């Protein structure tokens, strides 16, 4: 996020794209509600009528995967009606002419054809966003889980720069991350192309600095493979051994049967987790890890805030914190790795990572810190891009609308959309074992529009089979008009409804995010 969570409540215009905030990020949802209570205009872009859409002044129920067309359409109106923040564009950005040219054809009428949103509403939303004092854009995977996910994000940034709604309070471009420490895992270089703080592995001086600190002569220079590419390489027999810590790709990744096949093909798989997950079952060795309550550490939330995790109890049984296990494996492989505590590890991170340079457990004891925090006396940076972008001038990146990789056809006439539920989390390994959440919300269902249900002869509560080109699952139907005709929806929390058996592995070419939000399916009643 460019701005803190607490800023949202003070915005006077909120554009929430593909985020069912009140269910996926309930406490951020409270800020959205607060803003609305204070008179802010809320616009929600989502094919489904979610809870937060119910609060919106405008709910733009666009056709799945047409976000770029809509965003370009908004930019088109803002430019053609002279609503551009000229001072901001002149002094802080470059590439405006190219953007202007690119969005010229996205007139409200043309965009209406693609998205199904009326030209009048597109104009009204564009004007509202452009003329608001402080407008904020929120988005989540609803925007990024498409083959064009990266372009979607660029289109959002274009809009914010056109109107100067960035680099100041109560505004900005704000991705809401799904898991507690996705931000931190990225910051720490758990990515194939960068080390900590997004320092590229391809840069010689970066590598030599890390190599010196880590006591080795050199580090690999070639960017590695992403999750999806690793799975594919494993299926081809090129990757032979994998070490998986605290992830469950069998349920979370697209085309689950393919993932299982690939992992089974490995010569050796070690999985480190707190439960015997669907992925751990495939392992040769399973190492028992400690839960968050059993260790010290830090998490970095979606607004870049680094906060302490504190040990409350001893690890269960013989379980060990993940950091200790990694040290044991490294040492056994001939690279002695030893730390007295996570605080020591943070000291090393701070030395190697400019944006974490001023972060220490001592400071975190009294309060959290928002990075970039380059020095021990630096207060942290809750708002990014104030006065200047990291790269100097903000660059407009014109982007074009591309239809989803897999569209409905005669054989698979419906679009499957997947997401999260309020009472559950990710692949359910934790929330299905709480003695409370699963008791209250214990079974998954498939949401289907009454019109589709009628034509398929499906009644509320019927068991149905959902079939895509890649796999099938059985689930109970719930007939509701919160999903539009032509779209069915379910979550990926429940192992018995392993919906990612069906989803498409087609990926965005840059960020390599699979297109989990759109794939073609058919639904049949089970006799």
């Amino acid at each position, binding site marked *: 996020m460019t701005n803190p969570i607490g800023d949202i409540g003070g915005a006077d215009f909120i554009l929430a794209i593909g985020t069912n905030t009140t269910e996926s990020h309930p406490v951020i949802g409270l800020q959205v509600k607060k803003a609305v209570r204070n008179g802010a205009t809320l616009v929600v872009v989502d094919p489904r009528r979610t809870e937060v859409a119910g609060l919106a002044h405008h709910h733009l129920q666009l056709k799945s995967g047409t976000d770029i067309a809509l965003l370009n359409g908004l930019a088109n109106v803002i430019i053609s009606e002279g609503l551009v923040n000229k001072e901001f564009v002149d002094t802080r950005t470059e590439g405006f002419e190219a953007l202007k040219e690119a969005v010229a054809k996205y007139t409200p009428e043309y965009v209406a054809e693609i998205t199904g949103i009326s030209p009048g509403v597109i104009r009204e939303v564009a004007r509202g966003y452009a003329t608001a004092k402080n407008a904020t854009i929120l988005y989540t995977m609803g925007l990024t889980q498409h083959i064009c996910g990266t372009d979607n994000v660029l289109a959002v940034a274009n809009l914010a720069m056109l109107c100067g709604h960035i680099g100041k309070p109560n505004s900005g471009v704000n991705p809401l991350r799904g898991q507690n420490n996705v931000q931190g895992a990225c910051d720490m270089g758990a990515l194939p192309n960068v080390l900590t703080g997004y320092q590229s592995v391809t840069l010689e001086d970066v590598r030599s600095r890390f190599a010196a600190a*880590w006591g080795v002569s050199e580090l690999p220079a070639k960017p590695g493979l992403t999750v999806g590419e690793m799975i594919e390489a494993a299926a081809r027999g090129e990757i032979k051994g994998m070490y998986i810590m605290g992830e469950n790709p069998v349920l979370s990744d697209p085309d689950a049967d393919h993932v299982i096949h690939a992992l089974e093909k490995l010569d050796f798989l070690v999985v480190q987790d707190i439960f015997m997950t669907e992925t*751990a079952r495939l392992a040769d060795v399973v190492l028992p890890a400690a839960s968050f309550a059993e260790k010290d550490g830090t998490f970095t939330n979606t607004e870049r805030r680094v906060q302490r995790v504190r040990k409350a109890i001893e690890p269960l049984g013989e379980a060990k914190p993940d950091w200790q296990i990694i*040290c044991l494996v490294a040492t056994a492989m001939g690279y002695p790795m030893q730390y007295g505590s996570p605080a020591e590890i943070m000291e090393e991170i701070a030395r190697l990572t400019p944006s974490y340079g001023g972060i220490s457990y001592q400071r975190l004891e009294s309060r959290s810190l928002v990075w970039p925090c380059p020095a021990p006396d630096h207060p942290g940076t809750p708002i990014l891009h104030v006065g200047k972008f990291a790269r100097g001038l903000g660059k407009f990146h014109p982007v074009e609308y591309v239809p989803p990789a897999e569209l409905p056809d005669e054989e698979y006439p419906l679009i499957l959309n997947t997401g999260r539920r309020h009472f559950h989390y990710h692949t359910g390994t934790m929330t299905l074992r709480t003695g409370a959440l699963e008791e209250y919300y214990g079974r998954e269902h498939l949401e289907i529009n009454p019109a589709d249900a009628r034509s398929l002869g499906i009644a509320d509560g019927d068991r149905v089979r959902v079939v895509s080109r890649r796999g099938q699952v059985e689930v109970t139907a719930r007939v509701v008009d919160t999903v539009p005709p032509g779209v069915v929806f379910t979550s990926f929390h429940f192992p018995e409804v392993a919906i990612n058996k069906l989803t498409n592995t087609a990926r965005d070419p840059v960020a390599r995010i699979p297109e989990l939000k759109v794939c073609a399916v058919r639904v049949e009643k089970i006799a």
Partner: protein
Amino acid sequence: MAEVTLTIDGRQVTVPAGTTVLDAARSAGIFIPTLCHDPELTPWGGCRLCVVEIEGMRNLPASCVTTATNGMVVHTASPAVVEARKTIIELLLANHPEDCLTCGRNGDCRLQDYAYLYGVREAGFVGERHHYPLEEDNPFIIRDLNKCILCGKCVRACAEIQGKNVVDFAYRGFNTKITPAMDTSLSGSDCVFCGNCVAVCPVGALQEKGLRAAARTWEVKKVRTTCPYCGTGCTFDLNVKDGRVVGVTSCDGEVNGRALCVKGRFGYGFIHHPDRLTKPLIKRSGVFEEASWEEAINLVAEKLGSIKKEYGSAALGVLSSARCTNEENYLMSKFTRVVLGTNNIDHCARL
């Protein structure tokens, strides 16, 4: 900003104009008891426990809804004030079950605190009592309306913090109670079980089902930490008894204040779930067998090492975790690059 100066219990206190008498007293470290007031919620002025004497005013005004003015002379503990507070507590006790011995909030209850403070030993009135059935048909929250003192905090918390308006006052007089629309239960309403009403309830009318059954209030140690679920990063206190996490309570989090969602507040049960892995496992002819750490680590080291030797570093891959700590992700990245010699590391950020 304009300031006003008033006298509270003989002391000069200067505060910004618009400050309430309650906040002015608190800023000077002078104690005034409250039941219905909460700094985060709209002032209501309903319980009247916070009454004070202000010279020149005929009645005893509620300090939480009275604005401080220049020259005001306030007495927070005059005999009339103390008498009024005693009467309020007696009236509340007259319609309160004498249940402290088994109440889950025993030791953390404002009514108990104030009865003790003002030496109110018994109700002093013989009145009709409520006999509402206990509401415990959901796995998260127990509602015992017999203990409700009608302070309305839950109503305001639900409306103003949670933005839900699930519960409200209903009926009149003696029959007044707090209930969801149509007098149904929470599970029959739009309630999302955030428990933010529980966090503000001053008495035992709203309780966390699991926590209050597992521990008495003075038995728990509280450890401040960050929620393991979504990317919001709410702060809360893990409540620990005898080495077990028995519940979660709100603290004043930097991101969330006291607000949490159902997962953060009630989703801790996985920590001690019997399915937790507690021993290293090695698969032998398709079946997992328990092993020692030494054996398991050596096997991992040997297998990864021999793949690296035979096929090169590019034949190895690592998935790190969006659920592990920064320190662990950092070490995993270091391990992958230094020990395995590859950049094949990723996590499910994309999912």
